[in-house]
């Protein structure tokens, strides 16, 4: 049984993919790339991502197990995402996934539906030479909320957890030549959710349909190769739920479980030469350790395109870049 696919899909994947998209802005403005795929002011990068994840091991609390009555849980996600340059230093991003779950064994019904709309503001206040490289700092604030009346309380087959969340992230990036490393820390405030039943048991009885959702935090380290043409990186992510309870022996999971996960993955993004502004992304990740969640392995692929709403400005900046070069 176990959700975690969802917690993770829900919370991590849009981040990863959007950052790949944002990579344009970072590299574009930071590098002297003659292609000038700059995520400058008034550019809009948008695209579509498919992701597939599955697991058959999960952690019941800290006990790793399988469940013959669930088999393998598969989650398919189809997401639309975008990143708009309000200015060179301020981007607005969004992501909206459609999620579908199913279990390979047992009788439990899979679920599907539009999940949560996520919106982010990304700010790059600092970008400066430091030693041999370039150092930059980012502040990212995100808000996500369910856009359909999907069911949270049917784990592990729910498509999401329904909490409205506010996330605050601080991120630092350092690049020397084409090598870079990025570290970030995120805190996620999560709202209570309302479920369909009027009572539930955690470590005690709750005679209410309102569930306190513990807040969460994560940190992430990513490093690899980055040029105007492509990005190839490894990503380590650790997600902690700050509170919540463990699934008891042979029990079902619940949205307010203490769900933790450490994942390791790779991402590749390539800007096509043939079509300026078109890029492909692909990646995968696996769960190294966890608690109250499935040990999922995921792959994703996507296509993004940059729409330029400021031809003149773009031309001008192109000229500017080549001069610098």
């Amino acid at each position, binding site marked *: 049984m176990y959700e975690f696919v969802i917690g993770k899909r829900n919370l991590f994947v849009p981040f990863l993919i959007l950052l790949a998209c944002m990579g344009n802005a970072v590299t574009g403005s930071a590098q002297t790339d003659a292609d000038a795929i700059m995520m400058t002011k008034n550019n809009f990068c948008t695209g579509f991502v498919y992701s597939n994840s599955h697991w058959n091991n999960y952690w019941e609390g800290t006990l790793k197990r399988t469940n*013959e*009555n669930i088999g393998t849980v598969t989650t398919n996600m189809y997401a639309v995402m975008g990143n708009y340059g309000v200015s060179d230093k301020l981007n607005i991003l969004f992501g909206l996934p459609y999620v579908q779950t199913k279990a390979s*064994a*047992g*009788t*439990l*019904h*899979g679920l599907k539906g539009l999940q949560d709309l996520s919106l982010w503001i990304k700010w790059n*206040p*600092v970008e*400066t030479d*430091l030693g041999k490289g370039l*150092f930059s*700092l980012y*502040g990212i604030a995100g808000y996500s909320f369910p856009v359909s*009346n999907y*069911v949270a*309380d*049917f784990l592990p087959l729910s498509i999401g957890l329904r909490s409205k969340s506010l996330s*605050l*992230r*601080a991120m*630092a990036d350092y690049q020397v030549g084409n090598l870079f490393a990025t570290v970030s*820390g*995120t*805190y996620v*405030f999560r709202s*209570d959710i309302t*479920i*369909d*039943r*009027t*009572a*539930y*048991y955690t470590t*005690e*009885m*709750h*005679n*209410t349909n*309102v*569930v*306190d959702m*513990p*807040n969460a*935090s994560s940190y992430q380290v990513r490093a690899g190769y980055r040029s105007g043409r492509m990005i190839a990186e490894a990503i380590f992510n650790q997600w902690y739920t*700050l*509170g919540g309870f463990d699934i*008891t*022996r*042979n*029990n*079902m999971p619940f949205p307010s479980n203490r769900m933790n996960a450490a994942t390791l993955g790779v991402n590749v993004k390539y800007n096509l030469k043939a079509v300026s502004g078109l890029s492909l992304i692909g990646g995968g990740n696996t769960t190294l350790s966890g608690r109250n969640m499935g040990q999922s392995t995921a792959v994703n692929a996507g296509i993004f395109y940059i729409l330029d709403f400021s031809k003149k400005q773009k031309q001008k900046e192109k000229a500017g870049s080549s001069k610098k070069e």
Partner: protein
Amino acid sequence: MKQVIKYSLLSVLAVGYIASPSCKKNTNGRTDYAPILAPAKTDIDAGNWKPVLLAGATEFSVAAPAAVNSTGYVAELNEIKALQLNITAEQQAKINYWGAGGVLRWNEIMRELVAKYNLPPYQNADGTYPIPSAANPFAYPLFPFANPPYAARAYAYVSAAQYDALVAAWYYKKQYGRPAPYKTDATIKPMLTQTDLPSYPSEAAVLAGVTAEMMKLLFPGEIANIQQKLEEAELAAIASGSATRSDIEAGEALGRQVAQKFTARARTDKAGAAVGTPADWAAFESSTLAKGEIAWISQDSPKRPPMLPLFGKVTPFLFDANTTLALRPGPPPSTSSDQMKKETAEINAFVSNPSREMIRIVHFWADGVGTYTPPGHWDAIAADDFITKNFSEVRWARNMALLNMSLMDAAIVCWDTKYAYFNPRPSQMDASIKTLTGLPNFPSYISGHSTFSGAAATILGYIIPEKANTYNAMASEASVSRMYGGIHYRSDCETGIATGQKVGAFAVARARTDGAD
């Protein structure tokens, strides 16, 4: 560079600051702050009400209390005064909590225990399943597995024992007429509703004693926790000015004695043998096949023995074992009939494209693994309404006993029927049927939820007539939720409701003649 460092520090501090106070959030339950019980009447003659198991209210004697002007009693009043002098906010909260009603709070505690223990054991390495052992409740699998029949019986025993114990208590209250402490000593502050009901023996202590004693049998792993609750309830009664130490001691002793009578009944009511044996399990299958019907098969993996297959033989409260058989409905549609095909197709259609509202209904009534079960859900529904009715404790107990005896006897009739016919679930007949709630590991006909709900709605509709239609509508929704969930056919549900209503009618008949109305 300086600027870089400044920003870095600021960012880190910002995230650190936000992360450090892990904001404590809390959601209140509906009844956490239920009002202090304020009975519309004392039911002073409840000592004449008809008990369930006791031969009469005086089967267990309660010694006459000391006079209120005795030195011993004055010392007891001083204990109350001392408690009231130094009362803390926490103690006040306990007084308010227990003051909402002992029957209510003990029922909530029961529901919590049922939810905690309602977990099917994990399989052994060889694919068999361990059976919880009352002799060793702390070893995995914990005893008991508080599944719906077990829970129905537990609620019924506790409720019926509470009722009988309070009938006896009310008898002695009237006989001895010892007034509440605050009536004898005006410096004692009444923290609960003032009443003319005599305080000896204390109803709070009767309830604590009877429940704690029953729990030794029903939830033996929880004795220490229950004892703590008992002491808390009794201290709250004393500190509130409602009872003295001797009121409490007499009440607890009476409660425990009454409980022992119920415990003795429970040990011989055949529930202990309800798990059955591998030979019993095989016989259900072979006798069904012999009739030319498809037999139920466990869809758990590994295959799990059916839940409490001999529970239908348990001795009911409201009627005798022969009546159980008389209440057993006729057979479900043959597994080879067109009717069965049609009913299976109907369930397939429900689960193929369920609306959000259908899923809401399924989940609202699911009451599956890790919950307080359908009987607990009906107790919760009843409790929410009883809170508004200003019943005395003895009337609360009587109404809860009627409800829970109905639910237990509904479980008995339902389980008898399930194993008499042993017919397959929709998902066994059609493997493409996927369920929107956990698939119960026992035969389909008749629906347990429907039987429970038919019984509960019938007796609750008698107790609170103005809500009879509401209860019936809830029962219908609970019933149909099992079809929407993909785990029952229409005939399981409709016959289940009708059978449950017949069980509920026995409770109504009892209620009409028990002296309370």
